[in-house]
């Protein structure tokens, strides 16, 4: 009896191990196939950027002699750097302003809450839900009359206000997570509010502030409703510059790809780094 059971037990565990192993191989195959299919258009775009224009429209192939001529052409003929500079200025300018406005507000909400705090937070969230297209006409007219059309200042103002609710909200959740005892200890030692903020709160919540800032940079960098409608050439950021490739005259796929690769590379890397914290900001803390 005992010999029989041990005989049957041995192969069973081997087959169990085998099926677990084959399940893992199957999952690996499936997971990677799905990931590569989703990523394929980006991969193809990066590849096409290193082709000549004639190779770009030829039959798809992975074998070709890579060239940097499209990258050169994009800079020389259309002045890529100018648009990139606009994107940097607008994304970082608006993020800096949003943080400047949001840090005191979030500080007050997290550490000096009143009865109205919750209502204020929810109201801020609701302003984020106003569809941009609903206020296109007045913003366009205001910008036209104040000379803000096609200026970086104009876009910075819009993006600051657009991202302010998310920035306040995210900072609030980070500040709330900070242990209150530390701030109180500082206060006991006679730190003023300013000292408390600069020497305790900011250093301790720096990772949270950094990821909030990064989310704001990503959102401003990729914003394409206002940039398309409010800029033409002077202040056009990369979203608007790439849109200029949509004109039907001729196919410039290699140049489009080179310009696009440069435009999305920094944000793709930032996005990979901050994906976890982004969920907090994108769902207003409703999913943690």
């Amino acid at each position, binding site marked *: 009896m005992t010999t029989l059971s041990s005989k049957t037990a041995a192969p069973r565990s081997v087959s169990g191990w085998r099926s677990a192993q084959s399940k*893992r191989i199957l*999952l*690996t195959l499936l*997971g*990677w196939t*799905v990931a*590569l299919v*989703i*990523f394929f*258009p*980006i991969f*193809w775009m990066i590849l096409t950027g290193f082709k000549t224009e004639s190779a770009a429209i030829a039959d*798809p192939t992975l074998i070709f002699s890579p060239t940097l001529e499209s990258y050169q052409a994009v800079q020389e003929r259309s002045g890529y750097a100018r648009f990139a500079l606009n994107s940097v200025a607008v994304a970082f300018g608006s993020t800096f302003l949003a943080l400047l*406005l949001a840090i*005191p*507000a979030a500080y*007050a*909400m997290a550490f*000096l809450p*009143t009865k109205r705090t*919750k209502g204020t937070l*929810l109201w*801020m*969230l*609701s*302003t984020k*839900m106003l*569809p*941009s*297209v609903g206020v*296109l*006409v*007045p*913003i366009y*007219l*205001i910008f036209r009359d104040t000379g803000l059309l096609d200026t970086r200042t104009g876009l910075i103002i819009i993006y600051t206000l657009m991202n*302010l609710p998310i920035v306040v909200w995210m900072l609030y959740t980070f500040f709330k997570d900070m242990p209150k005892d530390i701030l109180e200890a500082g206060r006991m030692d006679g730190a003023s509010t300013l000292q408390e903020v600069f020497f305790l709160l900011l250093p301790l919540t720096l990772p949270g502030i950094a990821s909030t800032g990064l989310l704001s940079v*990503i959102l401003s960098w990729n914003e394409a*409703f206002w940039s*398309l*409608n409010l800029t033409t050439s002077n202040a056009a950021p990369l*979203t608007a510059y*790439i*849109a200029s490739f*949509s004109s039907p005259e001729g196919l410039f*796929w290699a140049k*489009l790809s080179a310009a696009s690769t440069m*435009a*999305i590379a920094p*944000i*793709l890397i930032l*996005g*990979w780094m901050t*994906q*976890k914290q*982004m*969920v907090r900001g994108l*769902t207003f*803390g*409703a999913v943690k």
Partner: protein
Amino acid sequence: MNKTRASGRTVGGLRTLSLQAPAVTLLLLWMIVPLGMTLWFSFQYYNLLMPGMTGFAGLENYEYLLTDPALWAAMGNTLLLVGWVLAITVVGGTLLAVLFQQEFAGRGIARVLAISPFFVMPTVSALVWKNMMMHPSNGVLAWLSESIGLPAVDWFSSLPLTSIVIIVAWQWLPFALLILLTAMQSLDEDQVEAARMDGAGPVAIFFFITLPHLKRAISVVIMIEMIFLLTIFAEIFVTTSGGPGLATTNLAYLIYIRALLDFDVGTASAGGVIAIILANIVAIFLVRMVAKNLED
């Protein structure tokens, strides 16, 4: 004791108020001024091409807009676009979240690759898809279907709205995946293990444990996507310009045509009011849910 506490609170209240004042004031202006102007213009005769014709129009802009067949075509397209993208991203996102929750070799890198499209700016995704993927003779999809002996599809002429749906779904599927994957992390593994011990198969576990656990995260994804999808603009702007005909004109694009191409401020504003009302219906539910979460 009571007195000091009370006075401490007022001081705190004052400080709270002054610290919040700049952010709150600016957001209030940002909300009220354009909103008020949109509402005001929507009751005015106001066309930038006809400077002489101004004055109170009553409900005429709304009447003109609501009897315009273009509005109903745009509403239909908006609904189809939102509905299809939601269906694809929510179902796909849930399945992908389950897949990427399993352990397999190189899972971290595979996850990062799958999430990437969300970080690509809309004008780039739209143009990459329109040209390199969906071009009727040189695109990768045409090459694929020809290599298996099928005729190539001229995506943007024969299936314009479907093409837009594919592009937008490709951008938002990673969003659903990212959120749902995060929500999966709080799934109770012991509960899953216990169910497995009781003989529950993977399908039963998915429907009776995973799905109920993800319910809230899924509704958050639906509501946030709805708010953004209602006003998809750049993807249409760079690919079809709303055409052919009105085939891909959604509400946002129609308002843009009325405002910045026809310069009809009055009608465009009436359209804006309609868009705001639609978005707010969704927003009320989302705000309620977040408020509930704030209490826990």
